[in-house]
């Protein structure tokens, strides 16, 4: 094909895109296998992308979680704007974890490598990964400002023409609890960037491409057209939905309010009326709010297409400044998922009015996390993260699945591994009967995890735990899912505080169930009998 007028038809484009995706998937495998953070290696809490020279996304790794929709391309665009392509050299690695320019919290370190060809930048390889520790307070909702949340890396070069900046790595190591692992994870990402550079150049050799601009334009044009077409299938109008959630204190729920406007080929989500920014680390930066809206819309309208920028172009959001969904610097944002994970359910609530067959009742998310810290018998301090998930919401076609991470995709640690790593002894980890919201289709079940401190030394525990006050609502007549609960020594506790467990103290975590779909009267007798037989529902 000619270099000057590349024609990307149905076949060429498919073949090239498949290969581009195989490049980012290969890079992702490298990250998974070499990362130290369980968040990268077990939880896929990272992403690898290729963009064109302007920062437009052309390929994103298949397993990358919804939080990273559109975030890396905007990070690349920030670098292009703030550093400038003329100041970038081959072998440079750019880095930031600025929540507003990155992914919404300091733990995600974004690295970018300009890809050169014939002395010119033709593309960017970018990656973001949740590092094991970034300093600051142990992950919780407690910080009031970003300065308490850890080490802040402004957009900067950390490798100059292939040479690491010693100053940067020295300073970074001094700020974090796990210097080898945090630095090791950044190196794992850089390995992935090197790989993408190599592979993209090989692809361009094979197909005699001088640049990816036209390929990117054609791909994104088609994806954008497909999303526009899908939106055209939704009746024009404004659809509102409101959901109340736990809030920081009893009887002071947060309000999530959305007005979703479908106008021919575009969807706009306006969150005016949503609760204001909080002096706690549960605010969600605009980039993350957008990712969650885009995720819900893609699930409902175009689930099959791989991620590229065009898919998301017809989707816009507006959130008033200083909203909990659009905090400004220096707000604390570390526990963004605590708030952000509610957003897709809110968008579904609005879409349910016109697309009831394409949405899900609210799931038992956000993700639950229990961080333990203390001192081992050998005197060494430790900190450990355990993740747990609730049930998915029910849909038009079926019951919700039990205990699955949504919208995120984070595995829980095996009990056998958790008992090796922490002084907790697990008495049980089992499905939680009756926690799935009743309905024509039942919500998925949450789970009960019961642990006991068996060590002589006390364990400090702090939680990210939601839906303990206000459960996941059902949809179209479906009932709400079971409320979550954190019980210490038999008493329900306020999940916003840290507790210290002495030897023999017990901790019961009850993750929430998903909401039901459709009126319970419409649930078939066979489905009810099965629920009884299998004990999903008990007296």
């Amino acid at each position: 094909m000619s270099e000057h007028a590349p024609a990307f038809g149905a076949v060429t484009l498919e073949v090239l895109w498949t290969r581009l995706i195989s490049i980012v998937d290969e890079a992702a495998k490298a990250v998974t296998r070499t990362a130290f953070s369980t968040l990268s290696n077990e939880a896929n809490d990272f992403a690898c992308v290729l963009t064109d020279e302007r920062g437009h996304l052309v390929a994103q790794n298949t397993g990358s979680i919804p939080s990273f929709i559109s975030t890396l391309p905007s990070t690349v665009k920030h670098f292009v704007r703030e550093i400038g392509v003329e100041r970038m050299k081959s072998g440079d690695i750019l880095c930031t974890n600025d929540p507003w320019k990155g992914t919404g919290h300091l733990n995600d370190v974004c690295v970018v490598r300009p890809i050169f060809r014939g002395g010119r930048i033709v593309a960017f390889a970018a990656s973001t990964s949740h590092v094991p520790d970034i300093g600051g307070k142990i992950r919780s909702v407690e910080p009031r400002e970003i300065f308490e949340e850890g080490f802040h890396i402004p957009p900067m070069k950390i490798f100059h023409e292939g040479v690491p900046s010693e100053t940067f790595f020295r300073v970074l190591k001094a700020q974090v609890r796990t210097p080898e692992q945090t630095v090791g994870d950044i190196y794992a990402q850089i390995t992935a960037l090197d790989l993408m550079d190599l592979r993209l150049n090989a692809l361009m050799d094979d197909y005699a491409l001088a640049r990816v601009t036209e390929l990117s334009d054609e791909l994104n044009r088609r994806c954008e057209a497909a999303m526009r077409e899908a939106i055209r299938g939704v009746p024009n109008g404004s659809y509102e939905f409101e959901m109340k959630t736990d809030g920081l204190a009893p009887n002071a729920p947060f309000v999530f309010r959305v007005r979703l406007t479908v106008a021919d080929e575009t969807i706009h989500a306006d969150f005016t009326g949503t609760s204001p920014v909080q002096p706690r680390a549960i605010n969600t930066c605009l980039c993350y709010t957008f990712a969650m809206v885009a995720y819900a819309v893609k699930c409902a309208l175009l689930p099959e297409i791989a991620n590229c920028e065009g898919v998301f172009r017809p989707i816009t959001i507006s959130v008033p400044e200083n909203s909990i969904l659009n905090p400004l610097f220096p707000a604390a944002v570390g526990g963004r998922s605590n708030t952000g994970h509610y957003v897709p359910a809110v968008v579904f609530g609005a879409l349910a009015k016109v697309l009831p067959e394409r949405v899900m009742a609210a799931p038992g998310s956000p993700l639950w996390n229990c961080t333990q810290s203390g001192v081992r018998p050998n005197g060494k301090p430790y900190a450990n993260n355990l993740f747990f998930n609730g049930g998915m919401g029910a849909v038009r076609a079926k019951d919700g699945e039990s205990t699955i991470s949504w919208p995120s995709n984070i595995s829980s640690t095996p009990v056998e591994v958790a008992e090796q790593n922490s002084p907790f002894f697990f008495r049980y980890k089992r499905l939680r009967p009756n926690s799935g919201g009743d309905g024509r289709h039942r919500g998925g079940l949450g789970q009960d995890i019961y642990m006991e401190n068996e060590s002589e030394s006390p364990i400090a525990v702090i939680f990210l735990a939601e839906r303990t006050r206000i459960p996941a609502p059902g949809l179209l007549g479906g009932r709400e899912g079971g409320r979550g609960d954190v019980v210490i020594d038999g008493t329900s506790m306020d999940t916003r505080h840290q507790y210290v467990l002495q030897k023999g103290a017990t901790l019961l975590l009850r993750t929430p169930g998903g909401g039901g779909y459709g009126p319970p009267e419409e649930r078939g007798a066979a489905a009810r009998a099965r629920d009884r037989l299998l004990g999903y529902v008990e007296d």
Partner: protein
Amino acid sequence: MRQEEIGVVSRYSLGIDIGGTFTDIVVYDRETGRQFNRKVLTTHGDPSIGVMTGIDTLLKEDGLKPEEMGRVVHATTLFTNSLIERKGAVTGLITTEGFRDTLEIGRERKYELYDIAIEKPAPLIPRNLRLEVGERIKHDGSVKTPLDEQRLDKVADELVKNGATSIAIVFLHSYKNPSHERSAAARVAKRHPKVAISASCDVAPEIREFERASTTAANAFIKPLAHVYLANIAGQLKGRQVRAPFQLMLSNGGLTNVEEAKRSPVQLLESGPAAGALAAAFFGTEDGGGNVLAFDMGGTTAKLSVVDNGQPLITYAFEAARQKRFIEGSGFPIRISSIELIEIGAGGGSIAHIDEIGLLKVGPQSAGSEPGPASYGRGGTNATVTDADFFLGYLNPDFFAGGTMKIDLKAAERAMAPLMKQTGLSLTEVAWGIYDVVNENMASAARVHIAERGKDPRRYAILATGGAGPVHAYYVAKKLGLRKVICPKAAGVASALGLLMAPARIDRVATVAVRIDQVKWTDLEAAYRKLEDNAKAVIAETGLDPKKAKVTRLADIRYVGQAFEVVVELPDGPYTAASKAALNEAFEKAYIEKFTRTPPDVPAEFINIRVSVKAEIAGSATEVTLAAGGKGKALKGKRPVYFPEAKGFVEAAVYDRYAMKPGDSFQGPAVVEERESTLIVGPGASFVVAPSGNLVVTVPQEGAA
């Protein structure tokens, strides 16, 4: 139970490979290197019927005597199918109090991110048949709560009352201390002698309770079936006067005896593909320098496996019965050693369609064999890969399946017409597009797979088998930058022949979870010894001399803080404190090979230790002479065939594989026809018939098509 001595050399070996559609029977004659084979339809109700029909015809027609068979080796997809179709025993689980839902809770992850109607693979054992007993072992192996035997009796009775004919026993931390599982297994077996028992400490003694339970449940699910089936087929062979020892191929390409196979049938899940990989290693060694990408493309899927230095790569974790589009995470995790294999939904029957953004996609949906591709004229209306292959001239409508099947070319064109309309491409562009897209799907999968192992794809030769393999191999090779395509003769039965090339092999694993700087070396050495003794006992059971067996030590090692291990082949034992440097070095070398650099300042830790004990079996096939060939004229004629290099159809030479002789050489563009498949060779390539009988194509080096 000690079987007859099988080290004794006898002239013939018999291989039986039961596949989903066909059962292959092959006899190998050690003295002449000749092989005889038959293909019969698999008889699904009772697979032994097809096997015996095949054996009877072969022996009769080729004038062989059953008592001359020195050994019988068997592979089957029966057990995998029983998992996929969920047709196994009513199975119960007895587990630690508080943990009966481990199987159902799973890893809590979605295998597909954007599907809100996602379905987790339902556990093989439903919740009402998963019961708990009081008992608890701690992570250090100490007993916290003794086994409640009365409760055990009660739950076992309840499971049996509810129809369970097989019981899985999975207790927490049994990889560390198996005593509770062992005594529970013995007690239940005594109380219910007819019920099959699978204890996780025997099936998959590795840390991570969900994966261990999943493997044990799969084993329990197929165990009664395996018991009946293996006894039946062994009995029938004896009835036919085939008195030779009966051996089974394991998923890792090793052999074992009937008793071990009955104990742990989950090890046989991938026995068929394992035989295929061994055959690929065999046929590829001489002409591929030992580094081969085995490419087996059939009607619905393509399977890829990597052979390094003549040895197929082994994995220690895979998934069985993926329920959705072969997506990782949609199947049951299985922790046994197995030939490493990737399977994707790309075959001759894969259907082409246009997606939401106007791109041409191929598969994973397949037209299967009914109705099949449109060109089969059996009512199929979707355009498939096979239809494109006919249109492009790659397949010969007058000689498909050796001329036994009538092909409707017009139907193929009709099926592709809607795709023309949707894309604005010509018929030829659509057909080439289907061919090119399915090739890219396979090449991309291979690229990621090979790169994951830190290898460069270009050092491999591609070895094509399966009906569609040789049709697509040349252009897949071009995409991957491979220089050589190897097409063995009679690729259709090569896999069964692979059965006769395997050594006896027993793998064992145990979890140690210890940092390399904290290892107690006598303990580690003792742990390896224990595994070796156990594996050698099974080798002895097979009738081989364990003293002559080759022991390989391996370990799953990672840097402290990582969650994935690298399986590393270690230097031979015995180990002492002085071994530390050598073991560390072996790990670092393997790590760098995979990931290019090691992280700074972190110690390594052993998670699992493994041994692989292999014993060569006398009488294994080492040289295969295929039918001599060279009769008649090789050049059959010419026909128009599409080649992208020529941007159109050119008159290509069509050769008869059966008339080619070793030493003959040819130039592309060319088509080589044989009964089961057709090899396509592009312009600028040359190919020869090697002394091995393989066709070996040299691919010209240039940019991808």
